[in-house]
């Protein structure tokens, strides 16, 4: 056998293998009979970007694994590497296995890219992320895929106080990729008994700034979007629109009705929590999602058609609250938000969870949609955001 040098071997291979241009391949992928496109580069090269729809089989495993993707020897196959040399050599070996229509991409991935053709960058966990989220990815209900969904998720927190603090910390730790936080308050010494997001050095400074600093320090994967303003009928829709899920930790009735109505109009799931002294409530108001098999549940107005008259229900500032209580309730809200992102488990839709720290009891009560609900009922009378201060300032029934 005549010895061949590198160039001679490549020339021989090229004489035996059909080569295709990036443009021609692109055309076939878009409009023709789609060939099996195989990226034979190394994993890190593939992860940085590849031809859309390509499967990844590194050169060293090509012959061993190609049958998993194309058992039929008639299958048209296009191999590509970085520059078009390795793939033409590899194609010869695949052809020897009996694959009749195996081609090599001229110029490889470099040629594809410089032709300006679309590149798919697969989302993958980085090395650090694999370690950081390993206790999540070990869970069959999360896995790498679920973790990537968390990283792509956008959750809005109304309030960076008692409920918002643990919720924000756990959601950030869990790698929820974007956390919006609405709060116009400054950190006060009296907050620190329960609002674990903040610390003494932040007293007198905006809560959202304290939150951004703490959460970025906890997990740099998370983008924290601060809104240092009260949420109002004027800005609620614009703020909430950008998020997948809203977690309500507000401390007053007007905001609760406002957030409920805005979430209803925008069809966003709302994870609601509230606390009082030693007692907490959590539920999920969900607009329904047929593709996920989720039936629309009740809204806040189904449960509480009218607000209590001002003063009838004392606030935490008047009655006090056990510091740990929001830690439990806000953490449960975080669990529910994560379940909604992952589409796993049984969310608290149509169920009101009651927690009593004194009795140390959890109970779930069934709550239903009210056909007469002014917002989500059969004949709604609330069809846009209203003046919620006025709504809550009025006597409950006149």
């Amino acid at each position, binding site marked *: 056998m005549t010895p061949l040098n590198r160039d001679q071997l490549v020339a021989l291979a090229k004489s035996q293998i059909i080569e295709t241009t990036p443009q021609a391949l692109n055309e076939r992928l878009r409009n023709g009979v789609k060939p099996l496109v195989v990226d034979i580069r190394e994993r890190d090269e593939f992860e940085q970007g590849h031809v859309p729809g390509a499967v990844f089989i590194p050169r060293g495993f090509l012959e061993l694994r190609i049958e998993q993707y194309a058992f039929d020897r008639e299958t048209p196959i296009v191999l590509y590497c970085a520059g078009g040399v390795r793939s033409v050599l590899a194609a010869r070996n695949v052809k020897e296995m009996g694959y009749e229509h195996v081609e090599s991409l001229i110029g490889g991935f470099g040629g594809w890219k410089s032709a300006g053709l679309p590149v798919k960058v697969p989302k993958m966990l980085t090395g650090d992320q694999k370690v950081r989220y390993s206790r999540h990815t070990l869970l069959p209900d999360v896995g790498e895929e679920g973790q990537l969904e968390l990283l792509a998720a956008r959750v809005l927190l109304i309030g960076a106080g008692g409920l918002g603090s643990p919720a924000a910390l756990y959601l950030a730790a869990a790698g929820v990729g974007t956390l919006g936080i609405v709060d116009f308050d400054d950190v006060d010494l009296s907050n620190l008994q329960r609002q674990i997001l903040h610390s003494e050095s932040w007293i007198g400074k905006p809560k959202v700034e304290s939150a951004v600093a703490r959460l970025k320090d906890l997990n740099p994967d998370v983008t924290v979007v601060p809104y240092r303003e009260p949420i109002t009928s004027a800005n609620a829709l614009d703020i909430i629109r950008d998020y997948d899920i809203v977690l309500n930790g507000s401390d007053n009735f007007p905001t609760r009705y406002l957030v409920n109505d805005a979430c209803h109009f925008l069809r966003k799931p709302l994870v609601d929590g509230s606390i009082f002294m030693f007692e907490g409530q959590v539920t999920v108001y969900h607009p329904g999602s047929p593709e996920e098999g989720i039936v629309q549940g009740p809204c806040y107005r189904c449960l509480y058609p*009218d*607000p209590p008259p001002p003063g009838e229900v004392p606030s935490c500032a008047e009655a006090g609250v056990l510091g740990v209580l*929001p830690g439990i309730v806000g953490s449960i809200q975080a669990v529910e938000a994560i379940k909604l992102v992952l589409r796993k488990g049984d969310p608290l839709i149509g169920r009101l969870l009651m927690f009593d720290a004194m009795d140390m009891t959890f109970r779930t009560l069934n709550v239903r949609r009210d056909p007469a609900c002014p917002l989500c009922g059969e004949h709604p009378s609330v069809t846009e955001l209203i003046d919620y201060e006025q709504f809550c300032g009025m006597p409950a029934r006149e």
Partner: protein
Amino acid sequence: MTTVLIPTPLRRLTANQSRVEISGDTVGQVIVNLDDTYPGMGERLLDQNGDIKRFINVFVNDDEIRTLQGANTPVSAGDRVSIVPAMAGGC
């Protein structure tokens, strides 16, 4: 006797008890008897028309009474009546 679970904001009317035993064959009767035993309860739970206030939910066992027979929902020994008012606190 029916067990009535008292929410935190109303416990000052029940000398801080979180659950009390009250007689009555319907939810309506239980509330009337609750007010007899713990004066002030009726005022907190019912509006001028005697209806349950619209920011308060009452459950028999796990179900809200509007989905049952309202104030006429029958109760018997061993049933649990829960009073759940709206709470706004997130602080």
